[in-house]
């Protein structure tokens, strides 16, 4: 293994993903990039100032800081999960780059090491930025005294969580490889990781409650995520550092030895049988159903609904909403169909096919979740709400798919699309809440929004079609 080659490859990954990220929408503009960077710096400064002002009253001494750090370990682990999955998705979507690296004179171990280096940097950077205001506020309040608690609570926890996730990921990949399912590695591992993240998100509330309970009783309990702050409190800061170094070394060796022998190239589609071939809607339904990511969403939705159902929670029906996460791909999924010889369809018809196709696929796959309600009649009310939310979601995600076209299934575009849509809906929801708009008017406005979403989807589709035909041409020349 050559360190120089690993670094060259890791740099290549950095350059590729940075350029990919900067090639999305407004980020192509230098001014927009500068403004966004300035906004990010201003945001972090503002949050740090707010946190410092709050902590001024809340953190009189080390004991309270210790509680803050203990509680933040739950958040650090959650965000490590999220960033880990996001980076894995980025790699899955970049199979061209991975294929290219296979032509380079590097061994698989070197490629894996470069990937790990890149992943680790992304996780460290993201978690670092997310918890920067907290760290600055702690430093402002307590000075250098706060450093050990910050290092054990944020840095050590994030690094260990990342290494544990890597080993888990590799073990699942190895198991699949052993049973001849290496092409399903990404679907299965990502489904498991997503389900694990959702489960952890639910469990973290209990975790925080338990940690706070321990604090109120004047004791320090061990809750796995708070391993290093716990060790630091019980046996001192050098002991926690020694434990961290030992654990990191063991996990790094395990991660290196469990890394799959070959990089599993992602399989983007699964040949699931789709009935009624020959119907005009069939290609659209096949395009949506055969995406491997669709099955990740289905797997996560089912696991969540079953877990909630077993817990006796009527909210299990809401798990069906996870299926909507794939709606933003409805336009790009069928983009190759539009390139077929003889394919001519008006914008209105195209949008209708996208809406109906997505509605059919979502309804069929939500059916098993709704069947769970037959043995839990108290969940029927929730089921009706979920039905309406799914219908509305199908319409809105189709609009996002047209406004933010996820070319090459770009997860960055999808993320932007969802962020903008969620931001808009939450802002309007908050404004409507403050204005105390009467219920009937709200229903009327919701119905109007759906109609407008369809109208704008058709207009957007027309615009895309026109742009494709006219993009290169000078009118009237």
């Amino acid at each position, binding site marked *: 293994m050559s360190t120089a080659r690993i670094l060259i490859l890791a740099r290549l990954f950095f350059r590729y993903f940075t350029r990919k990220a900067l090639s999305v929408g407004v980020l192509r503009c230098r001014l927009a990039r500068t403004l966004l960077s300035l906004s990010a710096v201003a945001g972090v400064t503002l949050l740090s100032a707010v946190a410092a002002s709050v902590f001024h009253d809340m953190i009189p001494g080390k004991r309270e800081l210790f509680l803050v750090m203990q509680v933040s370990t739950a958040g650090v682990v959650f965000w490590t999960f999220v960033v880990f999955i996001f980076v894995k998705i980025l790699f899955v979507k970049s199979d061209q780059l991975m294929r290219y690296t296979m032509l380079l004179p590097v061994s698989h171990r070197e490629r894996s090491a470069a990937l790990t280096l890149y992943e680790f940097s992304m996780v460290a950077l993201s978690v670092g930025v997310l918890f920067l205001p907290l760290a600055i506020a702690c430093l402002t309040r307590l000075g250098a005294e706060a450093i050990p608690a910050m290092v054990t609570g944020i840095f050590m926890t994030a690094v260990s969580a990342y290494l544990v996730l890597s080993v888990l990921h590799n073990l699942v990949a190895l198991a699949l490889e052993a049973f001849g399912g290496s092409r399903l590695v990404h679907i299965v591992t990502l489904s498991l990781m997503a389900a694990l993240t959702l489960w952890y998100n639910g469990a973290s509330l209990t975790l925080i409650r338990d940690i706070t309970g321990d604090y109120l009783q004047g004791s320090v309990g061990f809750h796995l995520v708070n391993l290093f702050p716990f060790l630091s409190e019980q046996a001192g800061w050098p002991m926690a550092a020694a434990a961290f170094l030992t654990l990191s070394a063991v996990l790094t060796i395990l991660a290196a030895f469990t890394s799959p022998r070959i990089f599993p190239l992602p*399989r*983007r*589609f699964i*040949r699931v049988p789709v009935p009624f*071939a*020959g119907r*005009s809607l*069939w*290609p659209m339904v*096949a*395009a949506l159903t*055969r*995406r491997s990511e669709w099955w990740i969403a289905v797997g996560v939705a089912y696991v969540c609904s079953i877990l909630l159902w077993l817990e006796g929670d009527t909210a299990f029906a809401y798990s069906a909403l996870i299926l909507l996460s794939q709606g933003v791909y409805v336009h790009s*999924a069928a983009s*190759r*169909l539009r*390139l*077929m*010889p*003889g*394919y*001519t369809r008006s914008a209105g018809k195209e949008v209708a096919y996208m809406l109906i196709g997505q509605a059919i696929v979502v309804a069929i796959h939500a059916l098993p979740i709704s069947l769970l309600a037959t043995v839990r009649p108290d969940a029927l009310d929730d089921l009706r709400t979920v039905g309406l939310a799914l219908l509305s979601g199908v319409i809105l995600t189709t609009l996002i798919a047209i406004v933010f076209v996820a070319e090459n299934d770009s997860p960055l575009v999808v993320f932007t699309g969802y962020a903008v849509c969620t931001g808009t809906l939450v802002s309007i929801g908050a404004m409507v809440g403050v204005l105390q708009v009467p219920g009937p008017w709200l229903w009327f406005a919701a119905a109007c929004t759906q109609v407008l979403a369809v109208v704008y989807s058709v207009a957007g589709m027309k615009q895309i079609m026109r742009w*494709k*035909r*006219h*993009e*290169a*041409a*000078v*009118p*009237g*020349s």
Partner: protein
Amino acid sequence: MPLTQLDVHDLGFTYRSAATAALSAVTFEVGPGEIVGLVGPNGSGKSTLIKLIFNLMERQRGAILVTGCDHRSEKARSSAIYLPSDNELPEFLTGREYLRVLAGLYGHDTRAAGWDVEARFSRFGMRGRCDHLIEDYSHGMQKKLLLSGAFLLQRQLTVIDETLNGIDLDAVEMCKAEFHDMRGRGQSVLLCSHDFSLLEEVADRVLVLRAGRLVANLEVCTELAGGGRLSHSVRAALGRG
């Protein structure tokens, strides 16, 4: 039957970013049962011309008739098929499903005689692969699938944009035989290729484009008479002789 399968008259086109026209005053015809080659250096306007014929870009000047109808009409659309140079196929379909969807788009009855996907795949050396996802096909196999679609649908006009590049020799031979059969049925082919030996074997005429202008319309038989080579004639037409 119309007198021409494709009639391009005074076609002009300028790209937004370009100072000069990509196509200017291009005029030619392709008759029934004719196989016409389209050659020219990279950037001479071949792909632009084909995209305009299939209404994939907005025409700016001139007229295009496909089987006697305006190229934007429904009848023109269903009479012609275009095989692009890049393999942008719906990879979530199997080969058989792709051909079925294609038949649906052209309103072609898949129960009609001659629609034998298995046999077509076997002839292309792809036996047993028609129920595999296109995602699993190699580059050459994807090209063969595109060609299979065109040969099964048997349109009046088939336009092939360098699709024959990258397929094996057996498949090229099979394509030559298909072109021969198509000529017999009165169907026409516009074949965009840099393979002069192929054009010498199958084409009746060769159109030469240079910087968006049609600079020569060569009769292949005439050019080959007396031991001449098509490549030499084309080079001469391009002013590089």
